[in-house]
């Protein structure tokens, strides 16, 4: 039963896909990166709705990225779709393992433990020569269904691939929010004890959310790795996690669309700030974040979300 949100989303998808060939290169690649990062933000939204903030999503982002880079380098497997899927799966496996642990924590302690885990990965990568140490290494050129592509065509296909992955993720996560398990996010955030007394295992649900966010993070990292063409340990550093949380605040957790809108706005602001005042771009970002928190507490998504106030379906 398609809702208005679905129709608008579908329309945007088609417009974005069709616009690709006519967009200037730098915009297309900016959008691709933004959409890849949007997946990580979507994962954060899934957690945020249950009252959890992770300061360590960079862990999965980095795992997704390095999985792609290492597989391409060590096994010669370069199929883009396959690599992205494997990136997501790799991150998902790690999320399944650490999720059991993380599900026991809440609030600031959940945030801190997730931070610690991502910094452990950072430390390992920096010190490991065979994994490129601080410089990281380049990602081999991906192929699509056996065909090697280059230059603008490659950029185009990566753009479309990212768009498709985003669309699928958006549909699946929306469906998740409408089912019982997904809709329990707000009740868990509000009164976890009551949810337990209604007969539900809260830690099981949170574990699942960590895995979902992990897979999304991995997919995002994999797509980013293919687009940027390079991976390095900084992808696991706490400032990377911080920027994802930043986007989540900017976007608001009100809807699935918020992840994409927020990410695009963030990339745009970051690029403009870099261009116009390269030595003050952090100040610009920081100010935007501060102003958003102070004056737009529900994020940008709340502006769009007001259109959907009565529907109850996201």
């Amino acid at each position: 039963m398609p809702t208005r949100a679905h129709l608008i989303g579908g329309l945007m998808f088609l417009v974005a896909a069709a616009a690709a060939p006519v967009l200037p290169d730098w915009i297309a690649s900016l959008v691709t990166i933004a959409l890849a990062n949007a997946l990580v933000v979507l994962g954060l939204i899934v957690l945020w709705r249950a009252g959890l903030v992770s300061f360590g999503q960079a862990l999965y982002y980095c795992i997704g990225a390095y999985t792609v880079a290492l597989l391409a380098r060590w096994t010669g497997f370069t199929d883009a779709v396959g690599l992205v899927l494997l990136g997501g799966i790799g991150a998902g496996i790690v999320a399944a393992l650490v999720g059991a642990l993380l599900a026991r924590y809440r609030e600031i302690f959940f945030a801190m433990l997730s931070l610690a885990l991502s910094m452990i990965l950072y430390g390992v990568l920096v010190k490991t020569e065979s994994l490129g140490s601080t410089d990281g290494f380049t990602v081999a050129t991906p192929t699509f269904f056996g065909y090697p592509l280059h230059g603008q065509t490659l950029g185009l296909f990566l753009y479309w691939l990212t768009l498709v992955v985003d669309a699928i993720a958006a549909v699946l996560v929306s469906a998740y929010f409408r089912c019982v398990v997904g809709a329990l996010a707000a009740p868990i955030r509000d009164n976890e004890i009551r949810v337990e007394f209604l007969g539900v295992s809260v830690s099981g649900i949170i574990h699942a959310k960590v895995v979902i966010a992990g897979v999304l993070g991995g997919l995002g990292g994999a797509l980013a790795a293919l687009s940027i063409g390079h991976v390095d340990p900084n992808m696991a550093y706490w400032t990377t996690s911080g920027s994802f949380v930043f986007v989540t605040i900017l976007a608001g957790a009100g809807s699935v669309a918020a992840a994409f809108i927020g990410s695009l706005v963030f990339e745009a602001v970051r690029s403009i700030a870099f261009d116009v005042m390269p030595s003050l771009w952090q100040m610009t970002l920081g100010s935007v974040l501060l102003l958003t928190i102070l004056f737009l507490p529900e994020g940008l998504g709340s502006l769009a979300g007001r259109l959907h106030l009565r529907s109850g379906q996201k």
Partner: protein
Amino acid sequence: MMASRNGPILSVQNLEKTFGSLVAARDITISVPAEQTIGVIGANGAGKTTFINMITGHLTPTRGSIFFEDREITGKPSREITRLGISRSFQVAQVFPTLNVFDNMCIAAAIARRKRGLIGGITTPVHSSAAVAEAEAAIDLFQIRRYRDTPASTLPQGVRKLLDIGMAVVGSPRLLLLDEPTSGISIEEKFDLMSVVMSALKSRKITVLFVEHDMEIVARFADRVLAFYDGTVIADGTPHDTLDNPRVQEFISGVRLKPTAAGMGHA
């Protein structure tokens, strides 16, 4: 609908619970026929909450057994016991403050209706027509329709309690444990609240155990009274007999005065 049973809906035998050297409950043997309404009285620390927690599965008895509808439930995890048909409400109403009354009820109904397992949780929609219908029915049953779209955080205390109990009822439990349903409610409103609750529960044919400190409430609404003292049951009978029992008066209720006008007015 359940056919009327021959055996008791709840049967507890020689139940005991110790925490280290502290004996919180001992020698509790009770048989509860279906659809009975039982008032549980006793001072704080007498063992009432321990007793309730053992039935709902949040505490495992050190000794003894609990049978629900002829099935042994001793030591089973609370999630399973909820699924089997035992529910509870809370002394401090436990609701979801950012959701409105309808959403609170709907979530409770959807949880109760979900199929087993992880896959079950994923395939059941939250706003299914069945869950919605049950939520609306419960809202009418507890007479809180005018608050349907009000956020739970802004509800008056009495309505919060009704919502709390309503959420325990949408899962169609056959046994409901109410923990001090009128605590925090003003004296003028207590009787009205209990009337609504009791007629709602009776219409659903739910067996009720309610913990209360207000003896007038107990006298008015209970078919039977269990009096707890020092971890065990010291009296078990009709409200009249139990509340006139000298031991009960000594340890729990004090000497019973003549029924008050308030009590008489709610026949």
